[in-house]
Each structure stands twice: as structure tokens, then as C-alpha cells.
């Protein structure tokens, strides 16, 4: 519906500007903040691609621990519904029902690892890559 540049292209060109032109020509605090800003744009860029796949995977993971539930189809309600389910999982963990030794503990660890891996694929893929080299994934 909108003319190009696409959202990807916009984020990419602004990130490139910060990295290629602002970072090398500034110092100190401004340079540091330019790096931070470029990194945040990179996160936004990755999130656009990965968000819907991440949501589906995470929703299924929570179903394994909390039982089946219908996922909303629009983005805004997904975020809300996911937070409600996550709060429910937090309550389950606090209650001790998922503690080490319980039937579901291994499933809990697997699901939590997948949830956090998804977050890091957006926020810090380099950390995941470094750990994969050490056999941690």
C-alpha cells in the first residue's frame, strides 16, 4: 500500500547512516549512543521478520505446560493474550508445581529455553552464535 522504500529498507538505511557516518565522526557519549541506536534499529528489523513465527512457537510451548488455548489472530490482542498466558506460567512456577522433580520440570526447562532463545534472536544473535560454538544452544 505504501511506496518503497519498504520498512526494512528504511530501517536498514538509517542503521547504515548511523554506523557508517555518525559513529566514525563522533566521540564519547554521542558515539556510544549512536551505536546503541543502530543496534536498536537492527533489533526492530529482525523483529519484523521473526515476530509471527516466534509468537506461534511460544504459544505452542505454553500450551504444553498450561493446556490448549485459542490464540487471537490480530497482533495487538496476541501481545495481550501472550502476556496473560505468561503470567499464568509465572504463577505455576511460584506455586512449586513445576519444581525440579515434578513431572513437567523438563518440559518447563525446554519451553523456557525456547522462549529466551527467541528473544535473543532479536536482541543479541551474536551471543547465541558464541554459545552455539561452545555447544550451548
Amino acid at each position, binding site marked *: 500500500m505504501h511506496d518503497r522504500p519498504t520498512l526494512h529498507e528504511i530501517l536498514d538505511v538509517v542503521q547504515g547512516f548511523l554506523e557508517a557516518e555518525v559513529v566514525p565522526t563522533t566521540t564519547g557519549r554521542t558515539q556510544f549512543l549512536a551505536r546503541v541506536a543502530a543496534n536498536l534499529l537492527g533489533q526492530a528489523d529482525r523483529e519484523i521478520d521473526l515476530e509471527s513465527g516466534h509468537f506461534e512457537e511460544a504459544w505452542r510451548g505454553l500450551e504444553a505446560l498450561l493446556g490448549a488455548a485459542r490464540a487471537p489472530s490480530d497482533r495487538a490482542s496476541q501481545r495481550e493474550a501472550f*502476556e496473560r498466558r505468561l503470567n499464568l506460567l509465572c504463577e505455576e512456577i511460584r506455586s512449586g508445581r513445576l519444581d525440579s522433580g515434578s513431572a513437567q520440570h523438563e518440559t518447563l526447562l525446554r519451553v523456557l529455553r525456547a522462549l529466551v532463545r527467541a528473544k535473543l534472536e532479536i536482541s543479541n544473535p551474536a551471543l547465541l552464535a558464541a554459545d552455539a560454538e561452545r555447544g550451548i544452544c
Partner: protein
Amino acid sequence: MKPDAIAAALAPVLADACGAESARIDGIRSMTGGAAREAWRLDVTLERPSGEEARSFVALVFRPAGSGQRAFEAVSEAELLRAAARAGVPVPAVICAGEAPLGRPFYVMDRIEGETIGRRLVREERFAAARARLPRQLGEALAAIHRVPVHDLAFLPRPKPGVTVAQAETDRLEELYRVIAVEPHPVFELAFRWLRANLPETRATTLVHGDFRIGNVIVDEHEGLRAVLDWELAHAGDPVQDLAWACVRSWRFGADALTFGGVGRREELFAAYEEAGGQRVDPSAVRFWEVFGNLNWGVITLIQVRGFLDGAIRSAELAAIGRRAAETEWELLNLIEGRV
């Protein structure tokens, strides 16, 4: 405070403390301080009948007393640094401390040359020789810190009688988390369960620095460790807390395989600590305090991002910190599952 006002107020105090006739402030400039205080670099010429002496100092100027941001006052922190120096901890020498001349609590110490920025210390080739020396030097410094008599330092926060240090610290952190967290973090919930199932029984207490890590020490590229800084979180507690905090992943600045601060291995730090007279390091206590440390840093990221989320501070830096919680969640899972 305005730099000129600080310089004018401190000049006579510095002259007096250094036994000079007078002191001329040649330069004053702001350094990175922190939320609770300002740090100023002061270049000074001390004038004596025998001649002039150029000196460089750091003045830490605290927010007004009673602003609720700190556990103890500037004069107490100065007293703590003096006690640490007597125990053999490398710290900047305290020149003077007080409140009246500035109308704000402050203390002044010698400025020590060197690098503090963790990312540089861990990555840059020019610090390779220093990195090789740091595990031993920091192990020795920590053993000395834990020898400082806490009995004389009545202002230090300490656990209530009848509660173990680990229990008290876990309670404090969980209360903070419940108040601060906006979004659910199931890994943090799991970590609290794990901590409560693995509490060490330590009751004997020593001085704990509270923020002992790469990033809070001054390092010279040839000599290695010059001074231990940032004492505002000092308290009486379990010494293993300091050993484990120094190994928390965020303080490896990307050199993740080097489990002690990105400069060495945990085992090197612990061996140096034991050889320097520190008590035997119990691996299960280290595991507890390392989980605690990573969780503590995770909760701090939630505190910092609140400033942005609440709309109080429009800062890209704070916004970015919100997404660093996931790094601590990842490391917590690795620790709890015994993968690292």
C-alpha cells in the same frame, strides 16, 4: 553543583589536608559519576614555602544527605576506604571528607591513572600483559577486603540476626523484583525457586565489597591492578558473594569463555584467593551466588528500563537495556541446568 563553586570551596580544605600554605586549582572537570553522586577531577598546585607540587585528585560529591539513595554517607565511605587501605587493599588514598565547605557530603581521594572500561580491558591487545596478572592480583585484593574488620564499621548494612545472609539477600531481591517488574519473566521466577531450594547456610560474615568486578577497578597496562573502586554497595555478608559477582557473565564484556571477568578462569581467581589467605571456596556456594548475581543484574536491567517505560527519561540507552534482561535469563538457565 557548579565546578567553580566546588573548586573555590575545596581549595583551602585540600591545602590544609596536604599541609600546604595554599592550593591553586588549575583545572576541574566532570567525570562519569553515577546516579547518587558527581565525580570531579581536580588538578591542583599545592603551594609551600619549600616550593610547588602538582597533584591530581578526584572529588566525589554526593546528593544531599537523606535523599535516600545510599546505605551510608560520604564520610563513612571514606572511613571504609581507609580501613581497606590498612588491610592491604589497593585503593586511592583518601585526602579529606566532610560536608560543611560544600553544603553536600563529599570526599576527595588521589586520582590514579589507568583504565576502568571493561570492554577495553577485555579486548584490547595493549592490556594482554595486565590481563595475565589480574586473576592473581584480584584474588589477593579480595582476600584482603574480606580481612577488613567489620566490627569497627558500624555503618555497614548487615543481615538481621537469625537469618542467613543468603536468605536475607534473596528476600530483598525478590521484594524488589515484585515491585519493579512490569512484564512477566518466568525464568526469573524459576531462578527464585532455585535459589530458595539451594540456600547456603553461611552465618559468619565478612566485609563484602558488593560490586567487585572488571569495570570497577583501575588497571595499568604494565602493572595490572592499581585500585579497587566503587564501594557504595559494601555491606557485611557472605564473602563468596564477591567471588561469584566477579564471574557474572555481563562482566565478561563479550569474552564469555573466560569465566572470570573476561580476563581469566574462575578457578584462577579462586586459587589466588585461597593462596592469599581467603577461606576455602565452596563450589556449591559459588553456584548459588552466581545464580543470585545474574538474577540481581537481570532485576537491575528491569529497574533501569522503568525510567524509559514510565516516560520519565527519553533515552536510547535505557530503552536498549530493557532487552538485555534476556541475556541474564539465558545465563540463568545455563547455570540452573549445569551447562556452564
